[in-house]
Protein backbone atom coordinates (compact mmCIF):
# COMPACT_ATOMS: atom_id res chain seq x y z
CA UNK A 1 0.00 0.00 0.00
CA UNK A 2 1.15 3.53 -0.77
CA UNK A 3 -0.01 6.32 1.50
CA UNK A 4 0.86 9.93 0.75
CA UNK A 5 -0.06 12.15 3.68
CA UNK A 6 -0.36 15.91 3.30
CA UNK A 7 2.90 16.30 1.37
CA UNK A 8 4.15 19.79 0.60
CA UNK A 9 7.14 20.68 -1.54
CA UNK A 10 8.58 23.95 -2.78
CA UNK A 11 11.49 24.60 -5.13
CA UNK A 12 13.41 27.87 -4.64
CA UNK A 13 10.52 29.20 -2.60
CA UNK A 14 7.92 28.33 -5.24
CA UNK A 15 5.32 25.91 -3.83
CA UNK A 16 4.62 22.95 -6.09
CA UNK A 17 2.78 20.56 -3.79
CA UNK A 18 0.58 22.13 -1.13
CA UNK A 19 -0.76 19.19 0.84
CA UNK A 20 -1.08 16.21 -1.47
CA UNK A 21 -2.78 13.18 0.05
CA UNK A 22 -3.39 9.92 -1.75
CA UNK A 23 -3.91 6.29 -0.77
CA UNK A 24 -3.20 3.50 -3.25
CA UNK A 25 -4.31 0.06 -2.06
CA UNK A 26 -2.28 -3.09 -2.75
CA UNK A 27 -2.71 -4.24 -6.33
CA UNK A 28 -4.47 -1.03 -7.32
CA UNK A 29 -3.47 0.89 -10.45
CA UNK A 30 -3.95 4.66 -10.26
CA UNK A 31 -3.60 7.27 -13.00
CA UNK A 32 -2.24 10.61 -11.87
CA UNK A 33 -3.37 13.28 -14.28
CA UNK A 34 -3.15 17.04 -14.36
CA UNK A 35 -1.89 19.93 -16.42
CA UNK A 36 1.74 19.97 -17.52
CA UNK A 37 4.13 21.48 -15.00
CA UNK A 38 1.79 21.10 -12.04
CA UNK A 39 3.92 18.62 -10.11
CA UNK A 40 2.77 15.14 -11.15
CA UNK A 41 6.35 13.89 -11.58
CA UNK A 42 7.24 15.52 -8.26
CA UNK A 43 4.56 13.41 -6.55
CA UNK A 44 5.91 10.26 -8.20
CA UNK A 45 9.51 11.09 -7.26
CA UNK A 46 8.40 11.48 -3.63
CA UNK A 47 6.78 8.04 -3.72
CA UNK A 48 9.98 6.59 -5.19
CA UNK A 49 12.09 8.30 -2.53
CA UNK A 50 13.98 10.38 -5.09
CA UNK A 51 12.70 13.55 -3.39
CA UNK A 52 11.99 14.26 0.26
CA UNK A 53 8.89 16.25 1.23
CA UNK A 54 9.18 19.60 3.03
CA UNK A 55 6.33 18.50 5.27
CA UNK A 56 4.08 15.45 5.34
CA UNK A 57 5.17 11.90 4.67
CA UNK A 58 5.06 9.08 2.16
CA UNK A 59 4.45 5.58 3.49
CA UNK A 60 5.12 2.52 1.35
CA UNK A 61 4.11 -0.78 2.92
CA UNK A 62 4.20 0.86 6.35
CA UNK A 63 7.69 2.31 5.89
CA UNK A 64 8.24 6.04 5.73
CA UNK A 65 10.25 6.78 2.58
CA UNK A 66 11.81 10.02 3.85
CA UNK A 67 13.08 8.28 7.00
CA UNK A 68 14.84 5.50 5.09
CA UNK A 69 18.53 5.81 4.26
CA UNK A 70 21.28 3.72 2.68
CA UNK A 71 20.74 0.00 2.50
CA UNK A 72 17.23 0.12 4.02
CA UNK A 73 16.12 2.44 1.23
CA UNK A 74 17.87 0.30 -1.40
CA UNK A 75 16.15 -2.84 -0.04
CA UNK A 76 12.73 -1.23 -0.38
CA UNK A 77 13.54 0.15 -3.81
CA UNK A 78 14.52 -3.31 -4.96
CA UNK A 79 10.76 -4.01 -4.84
CA UNK A 80 10.08 -1.02 -7.13
CA UNK A 81 10.07 -0.63 -10.85
CA UNK A 82 10.14 2.79 -12.50
CA UNK A 83 9.60 3.63 -16.14
CA UNK A 84 11.03 7.09 -16.68
CA UNK A 85 9.69 9.60 -19.17
CA UNK A 86 12.72 9.31 -21.45
CA UNK A 87 13.32 5.64 -20.73
CA UNK A 88 16.56 6.32 -18.80
CA UNK A 89 18.30 3.44 -20.56
CA UNK A 90 22.05 3.11 -20.04
CA UNK A 91 23.21 4.35 -23.41
CA UNK A 92 26.50 2.45 -23.39
CA UNK A 93 24.70 -0.88 -22.95
CA UNK A 94 22.70 -2.80 -25.56
CA UNK A 95 18.95 -3.35 -25.18
CA UNK A 96 19.69 -6.88 -23.91
CA UNK A 97 22.27 -5.68 -21.37
CA UNK A 98 19.94 -2.90 -20.17
CA UNK A 99 17.25 -5.45 -19.36
CA UNK A 100 19.81 -7.87 -17.93
CA UNK A 101 21.43 -5.18 -15.73
CA UNK A 102 19.18 -5.52 -12.63
CA UNK A 103 19.26 -9.33 -12.91
CA UNK A 104 23.07 -9.38 -13.03
CA UNK A 105 23.39 -6.96 -10.14
CA UNK A 106 20.54 -8.00 -7.87
CA UNK A 107 20.25 -11.77 -8.33
CA UNK A 108 22.53 -14.78 -8.34
CA UNK A 109 21.15 -16.09 -11.65
CA UNK A 110 23.58 -17.69 -14.10
CA UNK A 111 24.14 -16.03 -17.49
CA UNK A 112 22.00 -18.77 -19.08
CA UNK A 113 19.08 -18.07 -16.75
CA UNK A 114 19.49 -14.32 -17.27
CA UNK A 115 19.46 -14.74 -21.05
CA UNK A 116 16.24 -16.76 -20.80
CA UNK A 117 14.53 -14.18 -18.60
CA UNK A 118 15.69 -11.23 -20.70
CA UNK A 119 14.57 -12.85 -23.94
CA UNK A 120 11.21 -13.58 -22.31
CA UNK A 121 10.85 -9.97 -21.15
CA UNK A 122 11.83 -8.62 -24.57
CA UNK A 123 9.38 -10.93 -26.28
CA UNK A 124 6.62 -9.81 -23.91
CA UNK A 125 7.12 -6.19 -24.97
CA UNK A 126 7.49 -7.07 -28.65
CA UNK A 127 11.22 -6.56 -28.91
CA UNK A 128 12.38 -10.09 -29.65
CA UNK A 129 15.47 -9.90 -31.85
CA UNK A 130 16.32 -6.29 -30.92
CA UNK A 131 18.57 -7.21 -28.02
CA UNK A 132 21.85 -6.40 -29.75
CA UNK A 133 20.87 -2.83 -30.63
CA UNK A 134 22.05 0.19 -28.63
CA UNK A 135 19.47 2.65 -27.22
CA UNK A 136 20.62 5.27 -29.73
CA UNK A 137 19.76 2.94 -32.62
CA UNK A 138 16.11 2.30 -31.72
CA UNK A 139 12.91 4.34 -31.99
CA UNK A 140 11.21 6.21 -29.13
CA UNK A 141 8.54 3.53 -28.85
CA UNK A 142 11.18 0.80 -28.61
CA UNK A 143 13.04 2.79 -25.93
CA UNK A 144 9.84 2.95 -23.83
CA UNK A 145 9.21 -0.76 -24.34
CA UNK A 146 12.79 -1.59 -23.38
CA UNK A 147 12.39 0.52 -20.24
CA UNK A 148 9.18 -1.37 -19.49
CA UNK A 149 10.93 -4.71 -20.03
CA UNK A 150 13.75 -3.63 -17.68
CA UNK A 151 11.23 -2.60 -15.03
CA UNK A 152 9.23 -5.82 -15.40
CA UNK A 153 12.09 -8.29 -15.47
CA UNK A 154 12.49 -8.12 -11.68
CA UNK A 155 8.72 -8.62 -11.24
CA UNK A 156 8.33 -5.59 -8.95
CA UNK A 157 5.58 -5.23 -6.38
CA UNK A 158 5.31 -1.50 -7.09
CA UNK A 159 5.57 -0.05 -10.56
CA UNK A 160 5.59 3.63 -11.44
CA UNK A 161 5.26 5.13 -14.89
CA UNK A 162 6.20 8.72 -15.66
CA UNK A 163 4.45 9.56 -18.93
CA UNK A 164 5.36 6.32 -20.68
CA UNK A 165 3.61 7.33 -23.91
CA UNK A 166 4.87 10.90 -24.32
CA UNK A 167 6.25 11.57 -27.78
CA UNK A 168 4.74 8.45 -29.32
CA UNK A 169 2.28 8.34 -32.19
CA UNK A 170 -1.32 7.38 -31.19
CA UNK A 171 -1.04 3.78 -32.37
CA UNK A 172 2.30 3.12 -30.63
CA UNK A 173 1.01 4.88 -27.52
CA UNK A 174 -2.07 2.65 -27.46
CA UNK A 175 0.20 -0.36 -27.91
CA UNK A 176 2.29 0.66 -24.89
CA UNK A 177 -0.84 1.26 -22.78
CA UNK A 178 -2.26 -2.14 -23.78
CA UNK A 179 1.05 -3.70 -22.82
CA UNK A 180 1.04 -2.00 -19.41
CA UNK A 181 -2.56 -3.14 -18.88
CA UNK A 182 -1.68 -6.72 -19.76
CA UNK A 183 1.33 -6.67 -17.41
CA UNK A 184 -0.78 -5.27 -14.58
CA UNK A 185 -3.38 -7.97 -15.01
CA UNK A 186 -0.73 -10.70 -15.15
CA UNK A 187 1.59 -9.47 -12.39
CA UNK A 188 -0.85 -7.60 -10.15
CA UNK A 189 1.60 -4.87 -9.15
CA UNK A 190 0.55 -1.76 -7.25
CA UNK A 191 1.08 1.09 -9.66
CA UNK A 192 0.85 4.78 -10.38
CA UNK A 193 0.93 6.06 -13.93
CA UNK A 194 1.26 9.67 -15.04
CA UNK A 195 -0.32 10.15 -18.41
CA UNK A 196 -1.88 12.69 -20.71
CA UNK A 197 -3.65 9.98 -22.71
CA UNK A 198 -7.12 11.13 -21.68
CA UNK A 199 -9.52 9.32 -21.89
CA UNK A 200 -7.63 6.21 -23.08
CA UNK A 201 -5.73 5.89 -19.82
CA UNK A 202 -9.05 5.44 -17.95
CA UNK A 203 -9.54 2.03 -19.58
CA UNK A 204 -6.54 0.49 -17.82
CA UNK A 205 -6.64 1.99 -14.32
CA UNK A 206 -8.75 1.38 -11.22
CA UNK A 207 -8.75 4.97 -10.00
CA UNK A 208 -7.81 8.43 -11.17
CA UNK A 209 -6.17 11.19 -9.12
CA UNK A 210 -6.34 14.72 -10.50
CA UNK A 211 -3.60 17.09 -9.38
CA UNK A 212 -4.42 20.77 -9.65
CA UNK A 213 -2.83 23.74 -7.88
CA UNK A 214 -0.71 21.49 -5.69
CA UNK A 215 -3.66 19.49 -4.38
CA UNK A 216 -5.47 16.30 -5.33
CA UNK A 217 -8.79 17.67 -6.52
CA UNK A 218 -10.36 14.32 -7.43
CA UNK A 219 -9.60 10.78 -6.40
CA UNK A 220 -11.93 8.01 -7.42
CA UNK A 221 -12.98 5.73 -10.25
CA UNK A 222 -12.69 7.06 -13.80
CA UNK A 223 -16.47 6.76 -14.24
CA UNK A 224 -17.06 9.54 -11.73
CA UNK A 225 -14.79 12.10 -13.40
CA UNK A 226 -17.28 13.71 -15.73
CA UNK A 227 -19.70 14.28 -12.87
CA UNK A 228 -17.02 15.62 -10.50
CA UNK A 229 -18.12 18.59 -8.43
CA UNK A 230 -14.88 20.46 -9.18
CA UNK A 231 -15.13 22.35 -12.44
CA UNK A 232 -11.35 22.33 -12.99
CA UNK A 233 -11.44 18.52 -12.95
CA UNK A 234 -14.23 18.39 -15.51
CA UNK A 235 -12.38 20.86 -17.71
CA UNK A 236 -9.22 18.76 -17.61
CA UNK A 237 -11.11 15.61 -18.58
CA UNK A 238 -13.24 17.13 -21.31
CA UNK A 239 -10.47 19.43 -22.54
CA UNK A 240 -12.91 22.35 -22.66
CA UNK A 241 -12.48 25.57 -20.68
Amino acid at each position, binding site marked *: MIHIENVTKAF*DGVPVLQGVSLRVAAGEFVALIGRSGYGKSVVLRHV*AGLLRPDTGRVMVDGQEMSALRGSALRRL*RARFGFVFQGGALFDSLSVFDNVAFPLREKTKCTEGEIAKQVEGALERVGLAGAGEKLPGQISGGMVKRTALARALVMEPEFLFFDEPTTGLDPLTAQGVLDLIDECHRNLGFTGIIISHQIPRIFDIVDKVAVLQDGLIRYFGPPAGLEDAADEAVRQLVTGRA
Partner: protein
Amino acid sequence: MQADSPSCCPTLARPFVLVGGAALRVLARTGRMGVFFGRMVGFTLTPPVKLRRVVSRIHFIGFQSILVVLLTGMFTGMVLCLQGYHALSRFGSDAFLGPLVAMSLIRELGPVIAALMVAGRAGSAITAEIGIMRNGQQLDAMEMMGLSPFRYVVVPNFLAAMVSMPILACLFDVVGIWGGYLVGVHLLGVSGGTYMGEIAVYLEMTDIMGGIYKALSFGGIIAWVCCYKGYYTDFGAEGVSRATTQAVVTSSVLILVWDYLLTSVMF
Protein backbone atom coordinates in the same frame (compact mmCIF):
# COMPACT_ATOMS: atom_id res chain seq x y z
CA MET B 1 9.33 36.44 -2.10
CA GLN B 2 12.26 34.68 -0.46
CA ALA B 3 13.39 35.77 2.95
CA ASP B 4 17.03 36.03 1.90
CA SER B 5 16.25 38.11 -1.16
CA PRO B 6 18.20 41.38 -0.91
CA SER B 7 15.25 43.36 -2.24
CA CYS B 8 13.26 42.60 0.93
CA CYS B 9 15.90 44.22 3.18
CA PRO B 10 16.74 47.81 4.03
CA THR B 11 19.34 49.31 1.67
CA LEU B 12 22.07 49.36 4.32
CA ALA B 13 21.64 45.69 5.09
CA ARG B 14 21.76 44.53 1.47
CA PRO B 15 25.54 44.12 1.19
CA PHE B 16 25.53 41.99 4.35
CA VAL B 17 22.67 39.89 3.03
CA LEU B 18 24.47 39.38 -0.28
CA VAL B 19 27.80 38.48 1.34
CA GLY B 20 26.10 36.30 3.94
CA GLY B 21 24.05 34.52 1.29
CA ALA B 22 27.13 33.89 -0.83
CA ALA B 23 29.07 32.61 2.19
CA LEU B 24 26.24 30.25 3.10
CA ARG B 25 26.10 28.91 -0.46
CA VAL B 26 29.87 28.31 -0.48
CA LEU B 27 29.65 26.56 2.89
CA ALA B 28 26.75 24.40 1.72
CA ARG B 29 28.65 23.40 -1.43
CA THR B 30 31.82 22.65 0.51
CA GLY B 31 29.85 20.55 2.96
CA ARG B 32 28.17 18.65 0.12
CA MET B 33 31.58 18.01 -1.45
CA GLY B 34 32.84 16.71 1.88
CA VAL B 35 29.85 14.39 2.27
CA PHE B 36 30.40 13.20 -1.32
CA PHE B 37 34.05 12.43 -0.52
CA GLY B 38 33.04 10.52 2.59
CA ARG B 39 30.49 8.44 0.67
CA MET B 40 33.02 7.80 -2.11
CA VAL B 41 35.63 6.50 0.34
CA GLY B 42 32.97 4.57 2.28
CA PHE B 43 31.75 2.74 -0.83
CA THR B 44 35.36 2.10 -1.90
CA LEU B 45 36.12 0.38 1.39
CA THR B 46 32.91 -1.67 1.34
CA PRO B 47 32.77 -4.64 -1.01
CA PRO B 48 31.80 -5.52 -3.64
CA VAL B 49 34.06 -3.52 -5.92
CA LYS B 50 33.06 -3.69 -9.58
CA LEU B 51 36.41 -4.93 -10.88
CA ARG B 52 35.47 -5.12 -14.54
CA ARG B 53 34.30 -1.52 -14.41
CA VAL B 54 37.50 -0.48 -12.60
CA VAL B 55 39.64 -2.11 -15.30
CA SER B 56 37.61 -0.38 -18.02
CA ARG B 57 38.11 2.98 -16.27
CA ILE B 58 41.86 2.31 -15.86
CA HIS B 59 41.94 1.81 -19.62
CA PHE B 60 40.17 5.12 -20.13
CA ILE B 61 41.88 7.25 -17.47
CA GLY B 62 45.31 5.65 -17.52
CA PHE B 63 46.04 3.86 -20.78
CA GLN B 64 44.41 6.44 -23.02
CA SER B 65 46.31 9.26 -21.29
CA ILE B 66 49.72 7.71 -21.94
CA LEU B 67 50.39 9.52 -25.22
CA VAL B 68 49.63 13.01 -23.90
CA VAL B 69 51.62 12.31 -20.73
CA LEU B 70 54.62 11.04 -22.74
CA LEU B 71 54.58 14.07 -25.02
CA THR B 72 54.28 16.61 -22.22
CA GLY B 73 56.82 14.71 -20.14
CA MET B 74 59.40 14.71 -22.89
CA PHE B 75 59.09 18.40 -23.70
CA THR B 76 58.99 19.36 -20.02
CA GLY B 77 62.26 17.46 -19.48
CA MET B 78 63.80 19.05 -22.56
CA VAL B 79 62.90 22.61 -21.63
CA LEU B 80 63.88 22.04 -18.01
CA CYS B 81 67.28 20.84 -19.17
CA LEU B 82 67.70 23.82 -21.48
CA GLN B 83 66.81 26.33 -18.76
CA GLY B 84 68.75 24.47 -16.08
CA TYR B 85 71.88 24.28 -18.21
CA HIS B 86 71.95 28.06 -18.79
CA ALA B 87 71.55 28.71 -15.07
CA LEU B 88 74.02 26.06 -13.89
CA SER B 89 76.70 26.83 -16.46
CA ARG B 90 76.98 30.38 -15.07
CA PHE B 91 78.34 28.85 -11.89
CA GLY B 92 80.26 26.07 -13.59
CA SER B 93 77.90 23.52 -12.12
CA ASP B 94 76.55 21.95 -15.31
CA ALA B 95 77.51 18.54 -13.97
CA PHE B 96 74.46 18.81 -11.75
CA LEU B 97 72.15 19.09 -14.76
CA GLY B 98 71.00 15.47 -14.44
CA PRO B 99 70.03 15.71 -10.73
CA LEU B 100 68.32 19.06 -11.36
CA VAL B 101 66.15 17.64 -14.13
CA ALA B 102 65.47 14.34 -12.37
CA MET B 103 64.66 15.78 -8.95
CA SER B 104 62.47 18.56 -10.37
CA LEU B 105 60.55 16.03 -12.41
CA ILE B 106 60.27 13.27 -9.83
CA ARG B 107 59.46 15.43 -6.81
CA GLU B 108 57.35 18.09 -8.46
CA LEU B 109 56.70 18.45 -12.15
CA GLY B 110 55.99 14.82 -13.01
CA PRO B 111 53.09 14.30 -10.63
CA VAL B 112 51.70 17.82 -11.05
CA ILE B 113 51.81 18.17 -14.84
CA ALA B 114 50.68 14.58 -15.41
CA ALA B 115 47.76 15.24 -13.04
CA LEU B 116 46.84 18.47 -14.83
CA MET B 117 46.90 16.61 -18.16
CA VAL B 118 44.70 13.82 -16.79
CA ALA B 119 42.29 16.36 -15.27
CA GLY B 120 41.98 18.05 -18.65
CA ARG B 121 41.70 14.90 -20.74
CA ALA B 122 39.96 12.29 -18.59
CA GLY B 123 38.50 14.41 -15.76
CA SER B 124 36.42 16.54 -18.09
CA ALA B 125 35.12 13.41 -19.82
CA ILE B 126 34.21 11.82 -16.47
CA THR B 127 32.18 14.91 -15.52
CA ALA B 128 30.45 15.06 -18.90
CA GLU B 129 29.61 11.34 -18.81
CA ILE B 130 28.16 11.41 -15.29
CA GLY B 131 26.40 14.71 -16.02
CA ILE B 132 24.71 13.23 -19.08
CA MET B 133 23.73 10.17 -17.02
CA ARG B 134 22.22 12.53 -14.41
CA ASN B 135 20.35 14.50 -17.10
CA GLY B 136 19.10 11.32 -18.75
CA GLN B 137 17.86 10.02 -15.36
CA GLN B 138 20.20 7.02 -15.66
CA LEU B 139 21.48 7.61 -12.12
CA ASP B 140 17.89 7.79 -10.86
CA ALA B 141 17.13 4.57 -12.75
CA MET B 142 20.04 2.90 -10.98
CA GLU B 143 18.77 4.10 -7.60
CA MET B 144 15.29 2.81 -8.45
CA MET B 145 16.78 -0.65 -8.97
CA GLY B 146 18.07 -0.48 -5.41
CA LEU B 147 21.63 0.03 -6.66
CA SER B 148 23.94 2.82 -5.63
CA PRO B 149 25.38 4.99 -8.45
CA PHE B 150 28.40 5.47 -6.19
CA ARG B 151 29.33 1.82 -6.51
CA TYR B 152 28.83 1.68 -10.28
CA VAL B 153 29.91 5.13 -11.41
CA VAL B 154 31.97 6.93 -8.77
CA VAL B 155 34.08 4.24 -7.08
CA PRO B 156 35.44 2.72 -10.34
CA ASN B 157 36.63 6.19 -11.43
CA PHE B 158 38.16 6.85 -8.01
CA LEU B 159 40.08 3.57 -7.90
CA ALA B 160 41.12 3.82 -11.54
CA ALA B 161 42.47 7.35 -11.08
CA MET B 162 44.37 6.29 -7.94
CA VAL B 163 45.93 3.35 -9.79
CA SER B 164 46.64 5.23 -13.01
CA MET B 165 48.11 8.46 -11.70
CA PRO B 166 51.31 7.08 -10.05
CA ILE B 167 52.05 5.01 -13.18
CA LEU B 168 51.49 8.01 -15.45
CA ALA B 169 53.66 10.21 -13.22
CA CYS B 170 56.47 7.62 -13.36
CA LEU B 171 56.20 7.48 -17.15
CA PHE B 172 56.30 11.27 -17.24
CA ASP B 173 59.45 11.25 -15.09
CA VAL B 174 61.26 8.62 -17.16
CA VAL B 175 60.46 10.26 -20.48
CA GLY B 176 61.26 13.70 -19.06
CA ILE B 177 64.68 12.55 -17.85
CA TRP B 178 65.29 10.97 -21.25
CA GLY B 179 64.21 14.20 -22.98
CA GLY B 180 66.61 16.11 -20.74
CA TYR B 181 69.34 13.63 -21.65
CA LEU B 182 68.74 14.22 -25.37
CA VAL B 183 69.05 17.99 -24.99
CA GLY B 184 71.79 18.00 -22.35
CA VAL B 185 74.05 15.36 -23.86
CA HIS B 186 73.42 15.57 -27.61
CA LEU B 187 72.66 19.29 -27.94
CA LEU B 188 74.52 21.03 -25.11
CA GLY B 189 77.46 18.67 -24.85
CA VAL B 190 77.17 17.54 -21.25
CA SER B 191 78.76 14.14 -20.67
CA GLY B 192 76.22 11.32 -20.73
CA GLY B 193 77.95 9.51 -17.88
CA THR B 194 77.90 12.64 -15.72
CA TYR B 195 74.23 13.30 -16.48
CA MET B 196 73.08 9.81 -15.50
CA GLY B 197 75.74 9.18 -12.86
CA GLU B 198 74.98 12.29 -10.83
CA ILE B 199 71.27 11.39 -10.85
CA ALA B 200 72.13 8.08 -9.19
CA VAL B 201 74.25 9.89 -6.60
CA TYR B 202 71.78 12.57 -5.56
CA LEU B 203 68.38 10.95 -6.05
CA GLU B 204 66.99 9.15 -3.00
CA MET B 205 64.15 6.72 -2.53
CA THR B 206 62.23 9.30 -0.49
CA ASP B 207 62.17 11.57 -3.55
CA ILE B 208 60.66 8.83 -5.68
CA MET B 209 58.14 7.77 -3.03
CA GLY B 210 57.20 11.41 -2.40
CA GLY B 211 56.35 11.80 -6.09
CA ILE B 212 54.32 8.62 -6.07
CA TYR B 213 52.34 9.65 -2.97
CA LYS B 214 51.63 12.99 -4.59
CA ALA B 215 50.42 11.36 -7.81
CA LEU B 216 48.24 8.99 -5.82
CA SER B 217 46.53 11.85 -3.99
CA PHE B 218 46.16 13.87 -7.20
CA GLY B 219 44.36 10.90 -8.75
CA GLY B 220 41.96 10.94 -5.81
CA ILE B 221 41.39 14.70 -6.19
CA ILE B 222 40.65 14.41 -9.92
CA ALA B 223 38.14 11.59 -9.43
CA TRP B 224 36.52 13.27 -6.43
CA VAL B 225 36.03 16.68 -8.02
CA CYS B 226 35.10 15.44 -11.49
CA CYS B 227 32.63 12.83 -10.25
CA TYR B 228 31.11 15.36 -7.83
CA LYS B 229 30.64 17.99 -10.53
CA GLY B 230 29.01 15.45 -12.84
CA TYR B 231 26.83 14.01 -10.08
CA TYR B 232 25.41 17.41 -9.14
CA THR B 233 25.34 18.93 -12.61
CA ASP B 234 22.65 21.38 -13.66
CA PHE B 235 20.17 20.40 -16.31
CA GLY B 236 20.67 20.70 -20.05
CA ALA B 237 23.69 20.98 -22.31
CA GLU B 238 24.65 24.28 -20.68
CA GLY B 239 24.60 22.68 -17.24
CA VAL B 240 26.87 19.84 -18.33
CA SER B 241 29.18 22.26 -20.12
CA ARG B 242 29.43 24.46 -17.00
CA ALA B 243 30.04 21.44 -14.77
CA THR B 244 32.81 20.20 -17.07
CA THR B 245 34.61 23.54 -17.03
CA GLN B 246 34.24 23.84 -13.26
CA ALA B 247 35.53 20.29 -12.79
CA VAL B 248 38.75 20.96 -14.71
CA VAL B 249 39.35 24.36 -13.10
CA THR B 250 38.55 23.21 -9.54
CA SER B 251 40.57 20.01 -9.75
CA SER B 252 43.55 21.86 -11.30
CA VAL B 253 43.53 24.49 -8.55
CA LEU B 254 43.10 21.87 -5.84
CA ILE B 255 46.01 19.86 -7.28
CA LEU B 256 48.30 22.89 -7.06
CA VAL B 257 47.16 23.84 -3.53
CA TRP B 258 47.44 20.25 -2.31
CA ASP B 259 50.86 19.97 -3.98
CA TYR B 260 52.12 22.95 -1.98
CA LEU B 261 50.77 21.50 1.26
CA LEU B 262 52.25 18.08 0.60
CA THR B 263 55.61 19.51 -0.44
CA SER B 264 55.80 21.59 2.71
CA VAL B 265 55.10 18.50 4.82
CA MET B 266 57.07 15.82 2.94
CA PHE B 267 60.31 17.42 1.76
